[in-house]
């Protein structure tokens, strides 16, 4: 990889209490992600894939190591600001009570985006149609959504906020094949526009991945695609 990577992680170390004492879930992991790429991370269940994404999003307590975005060290970037640029979609996304539109505009209600304009109604309607939710009105209460619809709205929410890097933790685990295809298409479009994605997969492989890694025993190993 040449030039400054968009996202760089050095010597990431995370320990978790196991049944027989502390276990290094991430044991000195190095990782680089170029702009406009999609990295897929696979590994057995419990190997630390989610922990890896949490560490990249600075959402993991007690983690050590260095992170940099566009060559700028994470030390000089407030955690909240970092997360608007390196945004995680958790494995079990939860929406807040309210309507679909309330949830899609949620990022703009936060202090960290003070002064930014939230997306207009037409943008929301287009975005919903783009993930196969053409029949879901922005005014629908989120308690009337299915699990699969919640997963796609949570993905839309984080994408509309335009982060530089998107961290997806098994985004299609609760989706049928057609919906999973829409998620893959949306992810590919995000990458084509210059965004970068780290995607943890367990169920399906992403055909558009530009790099593949395997996480096992605390180590991240590059796989030849």
């Amino acid at each position, binding site marked *: 990889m040449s030039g400054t990577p968009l996202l760089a992680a050095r010597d990431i170390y995370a320990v*978790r*209490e196991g049944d027989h004492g502390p276990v290094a879930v991430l044991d000195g992991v190095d990782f680089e992600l170029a702009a406009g790429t999609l990295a897929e991370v696979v590994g057995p269940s419990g190997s630390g894939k989610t922990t890896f994404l949490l560490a990249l*999003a*600075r*959402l*993991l*307590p*007690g983690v050590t190591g260095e992170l940099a975005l566009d060559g700028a060290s994470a030390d000089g970037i407030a*955690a*909240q*600001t970092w*997360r*608007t640029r390196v*945004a*995680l*979609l*958790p494995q*079990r*996304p*939860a*929406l*807040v009570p309210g309507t679909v539109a309330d949830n899609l505009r*949620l*990022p703009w209600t*936060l*202090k*960290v*985006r003070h002064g930014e304009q939230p997306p207009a109604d037409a943008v929301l309607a287009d975005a919903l149609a783009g993930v196969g939710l053409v029949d879901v009105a922005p005014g629908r209460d989120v308690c009337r959504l299915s699990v699969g619809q919640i997963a796609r709205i*949570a993905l839309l*929410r*984080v994408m509309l*906020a335009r982060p530089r890097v998107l961290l997806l933790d098994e985004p299609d685990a609760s989706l049928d094949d057609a919906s999973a295809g829409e998620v893959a298409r949306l992810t590919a479009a995000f990458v084509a526009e210059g965004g970068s994605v780290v995607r943890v997969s367990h169920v399906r492989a992403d055909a558009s991945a530009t790099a593949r890694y395997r996480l096992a025993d605390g180590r991240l190993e590059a796989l030849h695609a």
Partner: protein
Amino acid sequence: MPDVTPGGAIPIGAWELAIATVFVLVAGGLSLRMGLKLERDLAIATVRTYLQLFALGFVLRWVFVNQTWPIVLALLGVMVVAAARVVLKRAGNAPPGVFGSSVVAMALTGFTVTFAVTALIVRVPVWYEARYVLPIAGMVIGNSMTGIALAVERLFADLDARSAEMLGLAALGAGVWECARPSVRTALTAGLVPTINSMAAAGVVFIPGMMTGQILAGADPLEATKYQIVVMLMIAAATSIGAIASVMLMYRKRFTEDGVYLEKGYREPAA
């Protein structure tokens, strides 16, 4: 007709106390017969009631005669610390540091509300007049303790229940307050609703405790009413301010400096 004290109260002797105890014995007998296994707790509670209240009676009698401001303030301090220990015990899943925050919240409300009432409403001749300060402080601290304990217990339970939602919020750039705000609201509602309900039911459903006591002690019901109104408002204020202060002092303790909510696996042992 039994003798009446100078204040108008009918005195109670050993025989009368024994009769009251018989009723508890009946309750204990029922528990034994029905296999409820409550008789032991009931017996211990009864003995504690006798010992603690007699001890209180002797202490108050001594303090009323020998009152000095350091003694009165020291007793208030003991009450605050004892109340904070109760909060700590009830909020079993609270993070370390909750004891200190409870002491601060209760000292703040206990001292402010008590001395505001004794100085501005009752207008006691000496600011540390134990006959007024101690009973009023007892009611203020006791009630704010209940409110704080309910609010704190609910705060940490609700934060745990919303951990997935908060992770999603934090991942979008939300700060600690933005993540915790709904739980803070839920906690304060839980802490304040019993007090608000009891204000709404006072005089309609039940005669409040202090008013009952004053009437039994021979006071004019209207005078007792005015005192009771002061006490109820003061309890409402103390409970609200105490619960708000304690919840605001505590909610951050469950987050890292970077605003990450500490899930169960990442916590230090409980306080």
